[in-house]
Each structure stands twice: as C-alpha cells, then as structure tokens.
C-alpha cells in the first residue's frame, strides 16, 4: 500500500486467513481469498490506534485481548455491508401482505403475530413492513409485533432515529413519502406512528446466548444477509431460524439467496408474487 505514512502495513496471507476466520467465527461473514485486499484496507486504520506495526499483533489482540469484544464491534462496523432501502424487492413485500399475512392470520386465530427482520441495517426493511401493515385491513385490530436486529450498533442508531436521505427512497412510491415522512432540507423524518410500531435491538445472529432471547415468530425476513456468510455459518443460522419459526411460519430471503445446497428443512411455498420458504407444519402443504 502506498497510502500515507504509518498505513503502509500490509497483511500476509497467513494473517489474512487467521483474521478472516476469527471474523467468520464471530459474525458469520466470510471473505474469499481474493478479497484479502478489502480486509486489509478496512482494518489498516485500526493499527495506529494501538500503535501496532503488524497485523499479527492485531490478530493477537482480537484473539486474546482483554477488550477483544470491543474491537470486534469496530471490526463489524468495517466489514458489514449495510446497503438497504425502503420497499426493496417489492414483489416479495407484496407476497407478504397479499398472501403470507392472510395465511398467518387464518392459521392463528388469536395472539400476537410476530415479524422479525434479521439483519435490518438502518431500519428501512422493518419500517417498510410497518407501513404496509398500517394499510393492511386484514390485520386491523390484531396486534402485530415487528422487530429488527442488527450486529452493527451504528446502523441501529440511524434506525432508531428514523432519519433518512434520498438514497433510501429509490424504490418508494411518492404516496408513502407524502404520508409517512416529514421533509426537512436534505433529510426525511419518519412519522412517529410508524417508528413506534418497530422495536430495534442489537443482536449477533451467530451468538447462541443472545438468540435465546428471541421467542417464536411467524415470519422472518433475512434478506441480503447470508450472502456474506460461508456455508457453515449459513447452516447454523438456518437451523436457528427453523427453531424460532412457528410451524407453518415463513422465511423470506433476498432474491439472490436460496436454500439449495443449504438445508432441506424448509419447503418451498410457490406464491403468486414470489417463492418463499416455509417451515412445514399445520396447513403448510400448499
């Protein structure tokens, strides 16, 4: 690297693999060998903070260090891709309101319906769900919990604030913007009513202890998260999702993600608007 004094430290192949594997163990995110340069670039600024001159020292810090937890938070902010926007993959959300919700409502005639956005980033995904629910007659009067989790503390701050810029609206109907946002210069503030419908929490999907806090849910949205994981982490996560879903519950993945080669636990539910996965159970065989 040519860049600036003190930043010229490069990562050896060995250091890369050791650090890469620790990151993967911690949060599931996996970097192929060809992405070494990315990991190197993203972590380089951490070395001067500790006065380190090699990535080996940094590796030892996160492997043994007293404050390795804190440093992993730093790493997470650097290695996660938080790209998201409102009403992403709209056809799938249409499937959610028009097909999935009616089935869930029919299946469980009482009790709260629970929707989990796992890896919600800055909140656009759970808020989109909340806006849709606001307009959905079928759940009128039925309590629906929407909660979003992410491993990055930074994105959760934004999510809670509910303040967005133009970039979040690349596939949003103007009607929604008009109805639910107050514009203030370059930023758009989400209406209090919608914000209150969504609960946010910090959660590492690879952390078994933390996951124990999450009860049974009806629908899981985990979109564009497992593409960054390796096979083993995906398998772990999918097993968790399976446990957390009620029988007949739904799992919605991003359009480039699928369970082929991953698990046979779920069945494919071919809806009109999309194909989604479903945990087998009452009334689930379509």
């Amino acid at each position: 690297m040519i860049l600036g004094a003190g930043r010229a430290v490069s990562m050896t192949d060995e250091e890369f693999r050791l650090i890469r594997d620790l990151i993967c163990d911690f949060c599931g995110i996996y970097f192929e060998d060809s992405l070494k340069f990315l990991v190197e670039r993203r972590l380089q600024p951490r070395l001067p903070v500790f006065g380190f001159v090699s990535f080996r020292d940094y590796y030892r810090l996160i492997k043994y260090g007293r404050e390795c937890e804190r440093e992993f938070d730093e790493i997470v902010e650097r290695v996660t891709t938080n790209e998201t926007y409102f009403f992403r993959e709209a056809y799938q959300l249409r499937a959610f309101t028009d097909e999935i919700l009616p089935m869930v409502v029919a299946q469980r005639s009482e009790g709260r319906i629970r929707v989990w956005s796992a890896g919600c980033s800055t909140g656009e995904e759970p808020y989109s769900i909340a806006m849709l629910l606001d307009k959905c007659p079928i759940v009128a009067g039925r309590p629906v919990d929407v909660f979003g989790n992410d491993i990055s503390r930074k994105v959760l701050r934004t999510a809670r604030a509910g303040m967005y810029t133009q970039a979040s609206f690349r596939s949003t109907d103007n009607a929604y913007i008009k109805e639910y946002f107050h514009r203030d210069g370059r930023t758009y503030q989400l209406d209090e009513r919608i914000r209150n419908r969504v609960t946010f929490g910090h959660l590492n999907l690879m952390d078994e202890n933390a996951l124990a806090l999450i009860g049974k849910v009806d629908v899981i949205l985990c979109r564009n998260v497992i593409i960054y994981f390796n096979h083993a982490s995906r398998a772990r996560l999918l097993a968790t999702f399976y446990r957390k879903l009620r029988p007949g519950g739904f799992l919605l993945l991003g359009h480039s993600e699928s369970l082929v080669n991953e698990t046979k636990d779920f069945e494919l539910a071919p809806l009109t608007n999309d194909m989604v996965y479903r945990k087998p159970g009452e009334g689930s065989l379509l």
Partner: protein
Amino acid sequence: MVWVRCHDCGELVFRSLSGPEVVVAHASDVVAQVIGVALIDSRFAPIRVRNGTQAMAVMLARRPAAIVLDVGLSDMMSFQLIEKIRAGELAGTKAILVASVFNKTAYKRRPETLYGADDYVEQHHIPDMLPKKLASLLNEPEPNLGRLDEAALQRLNDDESMPELSGRNRLQALARSIVADIALYHENEVHACVKSAEGTPLVSALDEGRRLLASMAIVDGDTDPIQEAFDELVRAMRGAMCPTETKGVAERARRQNRYVRAQDLWPDHPGAIAVLLDLLGDSHWRVRKAAVVAAARFSTDANLPSKLVDGLASRDNAGLRNACAEALVCLGRPVVAMLMETLPTQDADHRKFVVEALGLIGTAEARAALIAQLGDDDVNVRAAVAEALGHIGGTEAIEPLKAMLVSKDTELLHRVYILQALVSCGETIPFDEIQQWLGQRVLERQVLALLGRCADDRAIAPLLEGVVASSRETRAVGVCALAELLADLKGKDTGVVARTLAAGVAREAVLEALADPDDDVLKAAVSVLAATGDPGLAPTILLRCACRNVVEAGVRAVISMGSPVVKPLLEAFDSAPIEARVLFLEVIELVGDSISVPVLLEIAMGPDTRSSEAALRVVGKLAGVDVLPALMRVVREGVPEIAHVAAMSMCAIGRREADAVGDSVVANWMSGEVNPEWLVVLGGLSRDVDIEVIAGATHHRDPDVRCAAIDAARSYGTSFDEENVIMLLTDEHARVRASAARALGCYRSDTALAALLAASQDADPWVVAEAVLSLGGVGGDQAVRVLKDAAGSSVAPIAIAALKSLFRLNPPQLEAAVEKALAHADPEVVREAIAASVRLYPDRARELLGDSLRSRYWNVRAAAAEALVNRSMVLPVEQVGALLIAETEPLVQESLERLLRVAQEGE
C-alpha cells in the same frame, strides 16, 4: 461436393460420393465448410449435420467410420454424444473433437482426457491436421498435407457464429459452445467443480468467456448465460458419474473399477508402473484423468519418466499420448533432459508432444534444443516450438524467432505463433520492423501488444485505432498496449492521446475498458485515462477501482493529475459507495489541498465511520490551528473511536504547531474538562511543560484517565518519574497495572527490575504479560529466570511475551525455552517459538522445524516451512515430497513447494 437431402433423416447434408463416411457435426456453416473441403480433398466423404440429435440419427442410419464434432454442440454436451456413441452399437466409431479455441491466442494446455474422444483438433488446424488424424485413426493412407490459406483463416476468425439462431436461443448456444471450449482446456478445474459444490477455480476462465460472449452478442445485464451453461455442464457430468439408464452396465462397472484403482494407486504397489501405464491408456477419459493425478505420486520413481516418454510415441492410442504428456508435465523439471533426447524422432506428432511438454514445464534448459527445432520439417511442430519458446522466454530465442518471422516461407498461422512468442518473451521490436505487419487482421492482437512496448511515438496512432477495434478482446489488448507505450514515453509529447480521448468513440472505448473483469485491463485503462489529465475523470476511475484489487494503481493514476481532482471528488462524494468514498479521501490526503478542509470536517461529523476516520486523518495532515475548535468538538461529541481519531489528528497538527495545540488542550484540562483523549494529545506532543499535568492525571479517580496518563507518560521515556509509575503497579484496576508494567520497560534500574519481578507474579494474566515483555528491556539473571518459567506458561499471551523478551536478551536458556514452546498447545506460541528459533544452533533448529512441519495447525506448518526456506536449511527431498503430497492446505503447499526446491538444489 454436392448437397443432398439425406434420405434417412431428411436433413440437408453435403457429401461427396467416395471414401469412408465421416459425420461432421457442427453448427457453424463456415467451420463445417472448412472441414468439408479438407475431408473431401483427402478423399473422405463428409456428411454434415448441425447438432447432436441429428448426428445420432444419421449415424444410426449410415454407420459412418468416424464423427468430427464441435466441442460445443448446441443441443447436448459433446461428451454426452460421445458417451452415447460409445455405449451402443456405434461404439467402434472414431470421434475427433473440434475445439473452437475461444481465445485463439492464449497459451493453451493440451487437453488431456478429451472427454472420451479419440483425438482433437483446433479449429485453425483443420486443413493441416484433421485429415491426417482421421487417416491414422482409420488406418487409411497418409493424405496430402493441406494448408490453411489466409482467406480461410480470416473466415474462421470472422465467423459470425450460429446466425441461424436468434435471441435467447442463440445466446444459450453460444454460451454452451464457449463453456464447452473452456471445459476442454480446464479439465482439472471442471472436475473440482463436479466433485464439490464450489465453482470457484474457474472464475477467471468463465469471466473470459463472459467477455467473449458479450463481444459476440448482446447479453442482458440480469442474466448470465455462461454461468447457466457451466452449471448445466457440471450437472450433466455429475449425472454421467452416476448414470441412471441401465445400458452398458458392464462397461460402467469396468470403468468404475479402473477409476477407483487409479485413485488408489501408489508407487509401492506391486507392478505399480505397469498398472499406471495401462490406466493412462484407458479408453475412458475419467480413468485416464485419475491416472494422471496418480502419476504425480510417482515423482520420485526413476523408472517412470522413460516409460511415459515411450507412451508419447504410441501410434494407436491418442488417449495414452495425451495422458503421458500431461503426466510428464506434472513431473516437471527432472524429465526435461530425457524429453530433449527423444526430440530427433521421425514421428512428427511425437515431436509435437515433446515440444509442448517442454514448453509447459518451462525450464530454460530446453531453450537451445527448441531453437534448433524452429526449422522443423513439420509445420505443426514449428508452431508448437514457437509457442513453447514464448512460454519459456529469454533473449536467446529472439533472433531466431525474428528471422523466422520475416522469412518468406513462413505461413501466416505460424507468424501468429511467432509473434505471440515474441510477445510472451517480453521482447521489444523496433517500430520499423513491426510496421509491415500493420493492417493484417489476423495478426492484430500480437502486433498491438508489440507496438505497446516499442517505445516509439509513431506507435500511438495505430494503437489509438486498436483501442476502437471491432472485437472486445482486441480492444482490451489495445488499451493495455497503449498504457504500456505511454509509460515508456513519459516526458515526450503525447498530447494527441489527450486530444483523441477528449471525446468520441475512443474515449467511450477506454471508459468501457474500466469495467473489464481483467484487473490488468482495468489498470491499463486507468493509466491511459490519467494520461488525458482530465480531473473530471477522477471519480469514475476511483469508483471502478474501489472494490477491485487495483486500488493502488487507481489512486496513483488519480494523484498524478494533481490537486484539480479534489473538487470533482468532493462533488461526487455523497453519491459514491463507502469503499469509494474512503478512496476519494485518501487521494485528497495525498494531493493535499487545504481548500477541502471545511467539507472534510463536515464528513468527519457524518454517520459513516470509515469516511469520518479518513476525513479526520486528512484534516490532521492538511489543516492549520484554525480547525482546532472543530476537532475538539469531535473529541467531545463523537463516538469513542472517532473521538480518538480526532485526537490523533490534533497530534498531527501539533507536529507543526505544538504550542498552539498543546496550550489549548491544557486550557481545557485546567478548566476541569477531564477527557482521556486530551492526554493522548499531550502524550503525542510530549512537551516538557506538560509533564506535570500528566503526572497529576496518573492519580485521577477515573481509571480510564489513569491509563491514558501512563500511556502518555511513556512518550517521555525515563524523564518521567519512575516512582510514580511503580506506584501505579499497586492500582486496584488491572488495566492500570498493565499500562504501568508496560511503561516500566524503559527504566533499566534495579528498582524497576524489582517492581517488574513483582508484577510478573500478578494475578491478572495481562499484567503478567506486560511485565514479562518489559523484563526483556531490563535483563539480568533474575529476569531471565522468570522469563524462562513464563515461556512455559499455558497462557498464550504470557508465553509469547516471554519468548519475545528471551529472544531480545538471547541468554543460553533460550534454546530450552524455544524447545518447550514448540510443543505448546496454542499455535500462536509455536509461531513465536519458530521465529525465535533463528537464534538456535542451525542443526538443532532444522530438526525442530522439521518436526513442526507435522503440526496439526496449518499456519505452524507453513511458518516452519517458510523458516526453513528463509534460512536455506535443507531437508531430504523424499521427506518434503511426502509432506507435500499429504498436504491439503494450499498456503502450506506453496511453502512446501519452495522448501522442495531448496531441497532439490541442496542435493
């Protein structure tokens, strides 16, 4: 030749009326025509069909002697068609594959298994090779040698493939054909994909395929026909491994049996070599393939090479020849001498195999023998020699190649190879000599590549034309060549480039090259664009480079345009993705333009950590004291990690304006604003006047402040009061004690030693580790005794610290400590011990490192191998060879290969 409607299948076919019938299955009219002409000239009777289904129908009706088939049939995989033929009554039919060689000039490995065909021929060798190969397979008299004239070559080059299909069908057919071609030349990788679910080893070849497809047809951005075709191929091959139909059960059982046998063949089995050769000549490609892999295990068997060389001479088993050639290449350098001895053979095909193998092995010893062979009687051998020389490289080959190039007798195709060889050698040829080849489309790519390194400004014009050539592949070569030329012409007037690239098709073409999947092309496009000096291009360039492994080249190119790039970069900042934003800021840091500071401060306060961090660093480098209030605000209000970066940025400004920065920080402190980051700044400045403030802070009630104060004290070295530091070793917070233990390392006094010895018994492992590390700075018998014990600690950080300290002090006890640590359960401790083993007596170190080569941790094995290589320690070749064969980790394999070379040289 006449066109008739086949009365059996109703297809329109061409055929001549005498000679053995040969079915020609090819979708392209141009290629089929060239094949037809070549066959008829040699008195075969071709029957033309377009795809595999037709081929089967015609073959069952007519029972031809042979089939010549396109490797990429439009309706089935060529290997499937061959399997069908082999499974039934047509089993005896000879089959020759026609490879389209999707990239006509790349250096290709000889395909080894041919997926069940008897032989293969590359498209541009149809006239000169196909009749000969057919004749030898069918035991017909040797036909007259045909020659490929320029017109036919050009026709093949310009072949607009599969015009009869349209839309998605054509796209799919083209994709299949490209993938089939890739598969033919990358069998190992395809097999890896068939075996496991991951399809990574072929990424670059598939990318090349995508590029080719895009240059032949319009591909919709959302689809990836190449990937689809590849997946289909892999699926089909998996299916073939466990076929469901019941025909040919016996053959499958035989094949399965022999396949397993090959996989499990080891040199110590009785009669192993005979078995191996038998398997190498098996009729089924999968068995041959497994046998080639097995052959690599025989690398230390002295009898094998000569047997393989004999196999090359086989006249009736092309599969055996191919497999032997591949196995010889695997064995590498040790077989070179033997291969060279067999060169004078009469059999031209044999010579060609030998030449190709020598080229692929690529050692310089073969160069002289190959040069002598440049004038071979056989045109194909000559071509192979040129290719092989290009692969081996070296200046000695250049004059003979050049002589051959200008000779009137040299045929066109051969010229392509020679030019390609000159390109691969890295030779420069003066512009005046290259000029005569300009304008010949067939030679275009090679000529462009040579122009790129002639360092002559007259080459600019033809290269600018090459940049807008019709084929994408050629355009990429053009861009690379232009970049190379511009680098060589530094300092000369290249204004014409900037003018030509200011607008229009050439500019578009180079911008398009920024999206090329090949990193080298991207790099070249970047440097060509930088040569235009147009700062408006900076954001585009960096956006393209941000997520690719060419970041450095992109940054360098953009900074070469100087500070005018700052404005466009800041303008594009908001809309750029994070990875690119960080690059923008790095560039601004390097070109240094203080106008940007206000915007940078705004970015620093923004939500994105990486941008904030980078922006603060730039501010530290560029700004003056006027930004101090803003930076102090970030320290106060920012999240902790950003606050710390802001403090470091203040230190950076303090390097220029120590008093302004120091005084304002002290003022904050004095006014009661307690913030550990202020101590970070004061430590960074290390002004004598601040020593009292820092000393005072070591007694502050907040442990974070005490830690920060000791860390700041460290930058004062021994001028800071030693007693003060020692006191802190009694702090109730382990963090503070650890910082104190670290700070004590610079005082080489008895009091410091006593304190550190006490700290080395602390209950907290981190305090112990720091104390142990500091003891390495103090030394003395007592310290060494403690260090020796600590090196055996089961707590990894303590053991590592102790090894570091012992290494620094180098006492006689080091050896025992290292030996013990090498057996530690934690691989990081072992790694440290390997590093420290450089201080041991070499023979002992070699022995110990040799043991570490068998560690169960891959990184320990790799480190041990690297250490042995770096210290030129020779281990027995067999030992390293055996480890290499058993090794599964690619990274360790690389290290072991280096070690093997050291071992071989040593012997």
